[in-house]
C-alpha cells in the first residue's frame, strides 16, 4: 500500500510547520501551567505531560492517515461517518460531563472527545459525495444532501452542548461546496438568509448564557467581573504583551490565572503576552503558511475527492484558527473553539494532526493511480 517512492513526495515543509506549531503549543502550555511552590522551586503542570502523550498519539494518527490511501478511506467514508454519528450519540447517552457539558468518552486514563473528529468525518463524506458526482455542488438537491450530512453531527454536537465545536462543521461544508462549484449567487442568498434568520435565532435558538456572552462581548464593561471578565482579561493579556512580550514563563495574566483556563482556549493570548507582537507574527505566519500550503495541496490533488478533502479539512482548520485568534484578543465572543495544534486537549490535537495526515496524503499521492 505504501510504496517507498511516496516517501519522497511527503511535504516535509508543511509537516515541519505543523510539528513546530504543536511544539510551540506544548511550550506555551508548559509556561502557563507551571506551578511555582512557596519555596520558589516549581514544576510544570500535569497538562504538559498529557499534551505530550497526546502529541505522540497525534503523530501516530498522522502517520496512519498518511499511509492509508485517502481514496480507500473515502470509499469507506459512509461507514466512518456512521461510526462518528454513533460515537456522538453514545456521548449524549453515556458521555462524561465536565463543566456542564457532556462531551467526553472516558477510555482508561484518556477522555476522547468525538466532536473534535466531526470535521474529519464530515470532510470525508462530503468530499466523497461531491467528488464522486459529476455535477459537483452546482445542484441544489446535492447541496441539500451534503447539508444533511453536515447537520446531523452538527446537531448532535450542539446538543452536548458544544455550540463552538458544532459551528466548526459549517466551514467544512461551505469550503467543500465552494470548491465543488457552489454558485456564488447561492452563497450570497445563504448569507442573506443568515442575516434574516439571526434575530429569530437570537430569540429562540440561543440559550441565555449564549446570548449573554454575545452581549457582554459587545460591551464587556457591563459585567466586568462576570460574563465580560474573559473578554476584558483577554485584551489585557494580549495588550500587556507589548512588542516583545514578557518572556517565557513571565506572563502574569496566564500564570496568575487572571485569564481562566489559559492553556486551553486562550493559549494564543498566552503566546501574545509572553512572546509579544513578534511572537504573534511568527505564529500567525506559520498558521498562514500551513493553510496556504495546504490549499496548494488541494490544487495539486490528482482527483476531486482529494482536492475537496483537503479543502474541507483546511477550511475548518482556518476557521478555527481565525476565530480562536480573534477571540484570544478579546475581539470575538468567547466560544469553546480551540486553537488547533496549539491548544491543550488531546482530541483536538489528534484530530488536527490526523487532518494534516490526510492533507499530506492527498499531496503525496498526486502522481499515483
Amino acid at each position, binding site marked *: 500500500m505504501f510504496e517507498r517512492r511516496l516517501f519522497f513526495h511527503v511535504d516535509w515543509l508543511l509537516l515541519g510547520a505543523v510539528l513546530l506549531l504543536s511544539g510551540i503549543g506544548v511550550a506555551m502550555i508548559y509556561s502557563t501551567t507551571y506551578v*511555582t511552590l512557596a519555596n520558589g522551586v516549581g514544576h510544570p503542570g500535569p497538562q504538559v505531560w498529557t499534551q505530550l502523550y497526546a502529541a505522540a498519539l497525534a503523530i501516530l494518527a498522522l502517520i496512519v492517515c498518511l499511509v492509508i490511501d485517502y481514496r480507500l478511506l473515502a470509499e469507506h467514508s459512509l461507514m466512518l461517518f456512521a461510526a462518528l454519528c454513533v460515537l456522538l450519540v453514545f456521548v449524549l447517552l453515556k458521555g462524561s460531563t465536565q463543566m456542564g457539558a457532556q462531551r467526553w468518552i472516558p477510555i482508561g486514563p484518556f477522555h476522547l472527545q468525538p466532536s473534535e473528529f466531526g470535521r474529519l468525518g464530515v470532510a470525508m463524506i462530503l468530499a466523497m459525495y461531491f*467528488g*464522486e458526482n459529476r455535477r459537483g455542488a452546482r445542484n441544489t438537491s446535492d447541496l441539500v444532501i451534503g447539508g444533511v450530512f453536515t447537520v446531523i453531527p452538527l446537531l448532535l454536537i450542539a446538543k452536548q452542548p458544544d455550540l463552538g465545536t458544532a459551528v466548526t462543521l459549517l466551514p467544512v461544508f461551505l*469550503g467543500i461546496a*465552494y*470548491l465543488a*462549484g457552489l454558485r456564488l449567487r447561492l452563497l450570497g442568498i445563504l448569507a442573506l438568509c443568515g442575516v434574516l434568520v439571526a434575530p429569530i435565532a437570537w430569540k429562540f435558538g440561543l440559550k441565555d448564557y449564549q446570548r449573554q456572552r454575545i452581549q457582554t462581548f459587545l460591551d464587556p464593561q457591563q459585567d466586568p467581573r462576570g460574563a465580560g471578565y474573559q473578554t476584558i*482579561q483577554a*485584551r*489585557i*493579556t*494580549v*495588550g*500587556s*504583551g*507589548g*512588542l516583545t512580550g514578557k518572556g517565557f514563563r513571565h506572563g*502574569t*495574566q496566564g500564570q*496568575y*490565572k*487572571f485569564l*481562566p483556563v489559559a492553556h486551553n482556549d486562550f493559549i494564543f493570548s498566552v503566546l*501574545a503576552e509572553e512572546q*509579544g*507582537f513578534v511572537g*504573534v*507574527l511568527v505564529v*500567525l505566519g506559520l*498558521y*498562514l503558511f500551513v*493553510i*496556504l500550503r495546504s*490549499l496548494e495541496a*488541494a*490544487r495539486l*490533488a*490528482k*482527483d*476531486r*475527492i482529494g*482536492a475537496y478533502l483537503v*479543502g474541507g479539512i483546511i*477550511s475548518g482548520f*482556518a476557521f478555527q484558527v*481565525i476565530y480562536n*485568534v*480573534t477571540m484570544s*484578543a478579546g*475581539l470575538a465572543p468567547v466560544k469553546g473553539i480551540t486553537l488547533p495544534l496549539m491548544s491543550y486537549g488531546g482530541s483536538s490535537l489528534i484530530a488536527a494532526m490526523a487532518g494534516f495526515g490526510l492533507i499530506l496524503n492527498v499531496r503525496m499521492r498526486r502522481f499515483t493511480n
Partner: protein
Amino acid sequence: MSNLMPDDRRGLGLRLSALQYIIAATFAALAVGFWVFQVAQHDKFAEMADNNHTRRLPLPAPRGVLLDRTGRVLVENRNIFNIALVREQTKNIDETLKLVAEATGADEAQLRETVERRRREPSYRPIVLIENATREQVIAVWARRWEMPGIIYQEVPSRKYPGTEAAHVFGYVGEITEAQLQRTDYEGIDSGAIVGQAGFEQQYNKLLMGTEGNKTVVVNSIGRELFELGKDEPREGTAVQLTIDGDIQKAIEDGFTASGFNGAAVVLDPNNGDVLGFTSRPAFDPNAFAGGIDKATWQELNTDDLKPLQDRALQGRYSPGSTFKMAVGLAGLEEGVITPNFTVNCAGGATFYGRRFACWKHGGHGAVNLKTAIEQSCDVYFYTVGNMLGIDRINKWATLLGLGQKSNIDLPNELVGLVPSTQWKAEHTREKKWYAGETISVAIGQGQVSVTPVSMAVYASTLANGGTRVTPHLLKAKYEGSGWQPVPPPPPQSKVDVSPEKLEAIRQGMWGVVNGGGTGGKARIDGKDVCGKTGTAQVISNAARLIAQARNRNIDYRDHGWFIFFAPRDHPTIAGVVFLEHGIHGPNAAAVAHHILATYFAKQDGKPLPPPPTHDDLHLEYKDPYARGGSPEGGGN
C-alpha cells in the same frame, strides 16, 4: 471518473486562489488588530495587567511610646489580631459576613455596616471586621477559612495603657472619623487609619503616628498572595517623654482610690508648668479603645451619669469656694486697699447693702488680720475686702493668677471658667448692671465664679512662684534618632511682679492653714512647710438642696471639696490642686493631697515612697452639714 479534467482544474484553481487571498487578507487584518493592542495601546493594557496582579498593602506603623519624666514606660505598643475581609477574594459578602458572625459571635448587622461604610475603597484592601479579636475568635475563623474565602486575620500594632491610670492624660486612639478625614490637619491619612481621639494621643497625633509603610505583593486571580515585590517598612512614631512623674501619678490615683471620691487633681512644677500628675475620676480604660471599642462599652461610657469620658480637670467648672480668698486678699494688697495688718472684726456675719451675710463660724472670729483671715477662712474679712475692691479689681487679680482663663495646657477641649466683671455682666447677661451686693458673694468664691481644676493648679502655681502664670504642659522631650531632644516649656501666659512682702502675707496665711491649726492640717508634712487652702463649694444652696433632695434622692447634692497647695513655702517646687467631687469638705481633699506631697518629698529626699493609703488612713470627714444655719450664702471653710 473523479480524476480532475483540465476544465475542472481551472475552475478549482481560481476558487482556491480566491480562498487563499481571502485567508491571507484575514490574517493581515488579525496582525493589524494585534498591533493595535500590543504596540499602539500597550501602555494602557500593561498598566491594567499590573493593577491586576500587584497590590500595595498598607503596613500600619506603631505609634510612639510614651515615657514618664524619669524614663519609665507609660504607654507602649503590643500586637493585636484583627479579623478582616478582602472583598475581591470573596464571592458572596453577605454569606461570608454571616459565617463570620456565626464563628465569632460578632453582630452581623454591625459587620455589614462596617463593610458598607468602606465600600468605596479598592476591593483588595482589607476591611477590618473585628479589631482586637480574641484568640478564640481567630481560631474559630481560621478553622473555617475554607468556607469563607476573603476572611483573613492580620497582626497589627496597637496601644497598651496602664489601665485607667491617667486615662484622661493619654486619651485614646480609634479609627479616623469621616469628619476628620475632611480636615486639613489629618491630610494624608487614609480611611481606616488609627488616630488619637482624645487627650495626649489626639493633641500630638501627628508626632506619635509614625509613617505607614506598605508592601507590594503579587497576587493571583483569587487574590492569594504569591510573593512580595517590594516593601517600605513602616516607621514607628516618635517616642516622647511626658512631664508626668509616674510616682506622683500613682500617688494621685492611690489617694483618690483610697478616698472613694471622684474628682480631679493636677500637680505642677510651679517654676515651669511641667505637669507632674494629672487625673480625672471616674476614668475609663483606654485599652478598651485601642482595639476598637465595642458598642456596648461605648454606650455605657456615654450614658453613665458620672460621665467617665469627661475630663473634669479641663472641662469641669465648679465654684472655687474659699480657695478664692487668696485672690481677693492679694488684690486688696496690690491695689493698696489693705495692708497685711488690716484688721476686721468678725462677729459671725456682717451686713452689706441692707442684707446680712453670715460667716461660716457663727460665733465669729473676732479681730482678724489677713494671715488669720486666710488661716481661719474668715468670710466676713473677705466680704469686707471684696466690698472695698469692687468686682473689677477682683477680676483683674483673679485673672492674673490664672482663674477664669484657659490654662492652655497641651490637651484638647479645655473649657474656660468664669470670674465675673461689670463688663462681663454687661455683655453676657440680660440684667447688664452689676450690683455691688453681688461682689460680696464673689469675694468668698461663691456666686457666679466658676473655675476648672487645671486653672486652680495654675492659680496655686502663680501664688507659689510670685506671679508667673505658667502654661501647664505634658510634652517634655522627643526622641529624635540619636537621642532625647528636650522640648522647651511653653512661655507663661502672663507675668506680674507681686511684691514679695505682700505675697509673703498670703503665703503665711496659707502656711497657717496647713501648719497653724487651720483647715488644711491633714496635708501637713514635717519640715516641708506645705502651704495650702481648703475650699468647700456648694453644689446647690442649702435651702434649695433640702427641697431637691426630697424630690430626687438619686442626685448627689453633697458639697465639693477643694484643696490647693504648694510647697515648700519659700522655694516651692510643687503646686497643685485636689478636687473631690461631692467630697463634702475641703479637708478631705487635703488628706488626699497629703499622700501626693508625702510621695513627692520622699522621692526628692531619696527615701522609700509611702505605701498607698488605706481609706482609714485618710480619716475623712463624712458629717454632712447640709443644714448649715444662717444665710444660704454662707461660705464654707
